[in-house]
């Protein structure tokens, strides 16, 4: 049962003040960081556990198997290597966007945000080419445990790339408005989105050798 309380009816209470969660852009004295940064680190901690479970599954299945294909026998190394360079490059462009915002250069920051978005798009296009090739050869998640882990892990990672791209597109489209309204807040948003993006890069740094090269 949900209790309904009309806050307007309570003397001395303003409904808007009751529900407002202030966005603090300055580091809090007790935590030493601003709320958004602590929030994204807690989220990333949960992401470590999510991908950790999949890595654990991969290790268990692979070490338990009498035959497990080596990555280079089944997967496309040149395409995956290109994707690695693209993702590393996008980590640099997002941090350069943040650095330029700190310098007060919105125009340059937007260019770097757009480059990051393009890198994400490039990554997804290459990944879809790779998937299409696998499907052409009748390799599906149901084919064997190797392809099951390959599709699940790269698929989940791809979804994270897609999520990051959506946020970058939003930041890019609303940059002028947010920057004019609250420069600190916008800069912090780019920083925390960047932290998420670096984590996505970090996951790929381990996925690439684990799935493709070993």
């Amino acid at each position, binding site marked *: 049962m949900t209790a309904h309380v009309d806050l307007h009816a309570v003397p001395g209470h303003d409904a808007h003040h009751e529900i407002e969660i202030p966005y603090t852009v300055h580091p809090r004295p007790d935590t030493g960081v601003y709320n958004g940064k602590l929030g994204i680190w807690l989220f990333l901690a949960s992401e470590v556990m999510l991908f950790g479970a999949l890595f654990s599954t991969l290790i268990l299945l692979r070490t338990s198997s009498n035959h497990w294909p080596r990555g280079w026998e089944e997967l496309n190394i040149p395409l995956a290597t290109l994707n690695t360079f693209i993702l*590393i490059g996008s980590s640099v462009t997002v941090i350069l966007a943040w650095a330029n915002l700190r310098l007060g*250069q919105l125009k340059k920051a937007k260019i770097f945000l757009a480059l990051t978005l393009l890198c994400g798009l490039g990554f997804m296009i290459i990944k879809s080419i790779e998937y299409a090739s696998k499907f052409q050869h009748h390799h599906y998640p149901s084919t064997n445990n190797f392809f099951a882990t390959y599709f699940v892990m790269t698929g989940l990672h791809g979804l994270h790339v897609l999520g990051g791209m959506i946020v970058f597109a939003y930041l890019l489209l609303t940059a002028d408005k947010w920057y004019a309204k609250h420069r600190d807040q916008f800069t912090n948003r780019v920083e925390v989105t960047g932290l998420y993006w670096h984590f996505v890069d970090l996951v790929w740094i381990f996925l690439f050798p684990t799935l493709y090269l070993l």
Partner: protein
Amino acid sequence: MTEHAAHPEEQLHDGHDNSPEAVKREIRKYLYVFYALAVLTGVTVWVSTFHLPIHTAVIIALIVAGVKGSLVAAFFMHLISERKLIFAVLLLTVFFFGMLIWAPWHHKYDAEREWPGYDLNAKKPAAATPAPSPAEHSSGH
């Protein structure tokens, strides 16, 4: 287009040194990290072309990936200058991540002792259809 020139009165208050000199120094550092990551990626791929035995390949791949990951975490995610609270969160995460990796693996060795030669990946034969009981025959279904 809103373009702010960096000005002392307009410094951000996010806990970072936002002076133009400091930020430009950081940008140079980020580029060096990028070059290092690119070179290490090349090294990983190059080593994989030797098709080393699996144990050697795993050790080399994990060392290179560990160095690359540390560079990303330390410099791009600026953990090198992060607050204690963030490290506390990460320490807890690392512990549980370690458990997540260790526990199933440990159990696997237990299982191997109990059932030598058991292959998790082996396809199990289809279960034999049980013969219908005399009672079912007589029921007419």
